[in-house]
């Protein structure tokens, strides 16, 4: 009997040695262990256009109500599939343009209040995990009555150094079709296309048991019709090359049971738009059931080379725009979020206030936006 056991053990050694080879008997980490459903309702309300600068149109700017649903479903033991659905209703007036008023004051022309639009976005992502890597395939579709986009992407993650180092790379492509619903005074285009491709590479490194850092680089190229068909004075190049560098840092603080988040992004493009974005968040746990997250975001942007607060008469230059989004400005936003965990689900509520203002030494574009956002929702896990 004992002898037989030994023989079996020897055989078993051979068999199990093969099992213990890397990649054979190891399960990938990170695969979701159960089905989950997330829902978010968002209310986004922009402040009214400034009355003293607005000479035409409606003061009431954009309001958006959005519903988002996400379903994450494990597929077998090495993959997961994620469905995202978004439906949003947008209403309100939008800035048409800026003209030169008395004393060179900019005067804002708003659209009528009639705009009401809907957008729906559906996306699917399949993520396949291996022992030291994962690959994601993503595709989606966004539709508005005047704008359709089809997009897709590939993402790859490779883990090294006992998973202390992760290299990520990604490719994203979007093909957009614009069919502006023309309003009076604008009849620029009937149908145009816009394509964008983006390549990214990133590296995440565990620094110590409580800190991790990430750096990323992204290059994106937009081509096609990049002009805003809803602006009165707008003509933009048909190509835009963007370079984005980003830095992320996460630190857990045991003594206070909290996590510190720092995210920084540096952006530059060949339209000479430059921006810096910094986001700082503090995740404060209260026991294992409550989390409060205050955060602040600072944004600073330098204007595009063809931006002017207003243009009068026939334009001498090929490209021009008075779009506030291409102006020099600074923005600050504050956010407060609360998460309450129950056994199988959690509840989330978040409020955000965003304010922007023109950079010093520049005439402020009166269309610069400020908004308030509220988001409520829940996450459910089905074990």
């Amino acid at each position, binding site marked *: 009997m004992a002898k037989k056991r030994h023989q079996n053990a020897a055989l078993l050694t051979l068999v199990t040695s093969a099992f213990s080879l890397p990649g054979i008997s190891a399960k990938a980490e990170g695969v979701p262990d159960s089905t989950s459903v997330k829902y*978010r309702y*968002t209310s986004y309300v922009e402040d009214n256009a400034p009355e003293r600068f607005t000479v035409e149109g409606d003061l009431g700017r954009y309001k*958006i109500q959005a519903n*988002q649903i*996400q379903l994450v479903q494990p597929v077998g033991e090495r993959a997961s599939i994620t469905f995202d659905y*978004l439906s*949003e209703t947008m209403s309100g007036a*939008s800035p048409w343009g800026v003209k030169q008023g008395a004393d060179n004051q900019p005067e804002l022309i708003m*659209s009528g209040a009639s705009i009401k*639009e809907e*957008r729906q*976005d559906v*996306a699917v992502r399949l993520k396949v995990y291996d022992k030291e890597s994962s690959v994601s395939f993503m595709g989606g579709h*966004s539709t*508005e009555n005047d*704008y359709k*986009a089809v997009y897709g992407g590939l993402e790859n993650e490779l883990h090294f*150094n*006992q*998973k*202390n180092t992760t290299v990520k790379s990604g490719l994203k492509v979007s093909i957009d079709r614009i069919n502006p619903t023309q309003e009076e005074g604008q009849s620029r285009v009937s149908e145009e296309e816009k394509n964008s491709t983006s390549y990214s590479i990133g590296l995440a*490194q*565990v*620094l*110590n*048991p409580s*800190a*991790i*850092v990430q750096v*990323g680089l*992204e290059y994106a190229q937009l081509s096609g019709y990049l002009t*805003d068909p*809803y602006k009165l004075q707008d003509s933009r190049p048909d190509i835009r090359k*963007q370079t*984005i*560098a980003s*830095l992320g840092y996460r630190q*857990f603080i045991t003594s206070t049971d909290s*996590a510190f988040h720092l995210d*920084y*992004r540096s*952006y530059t493009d060949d339209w000479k738009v430059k*921006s*810096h*974005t910094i986001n700082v968040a503090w995740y404060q*746990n209260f026991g294992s059931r409550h*989390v409060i997250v205050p955060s602040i975001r*600072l*944004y*600073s*942007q330098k204007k*595009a080379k063809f931006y002017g607060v207003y243009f009068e008469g026939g334009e001498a230059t090929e490209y021009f725009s008075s779009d506030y*989004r291409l102006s020099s400005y*600074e923005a*600050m936003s504050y956010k407060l979020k609360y998460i309450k965990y129950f056994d199988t689900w959690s509840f*989330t509520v*978040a409020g955000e206030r965003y304010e922007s203002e023109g950079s010093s030494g520049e005439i402020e574009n009166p269309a610069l936006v400020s*908004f308030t*956002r509220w988001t409520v*929702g829940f996450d459910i896990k089905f074990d």
Partner: protein
Amino acid sequence: MRCCLKIRSEYFFSIRFYGGVIILLSLSGLTGCASVEPWEKGMLAKPEMGWTPDPIEAAMESHIFFSKEGSSGGNVSGGGGCGCN
């Protein structure tokens, strides 16, 4: 509020500030990163330590910023479309 915004942003957006942050991080990485064992990752595994703890809300935020600001990118999430008015 307006004055504070200016002073703060000038400091936060300076290249030196970020240069300093990056150098500090790389130094701490050099001294500490090779030693974290798989069983020491309990803190890093916490949901609040994720790069994007709430991806669905992050997608909404990045879509808003993409629609309302002059620059975009640098994040993994975020869908397509415009909603740009």
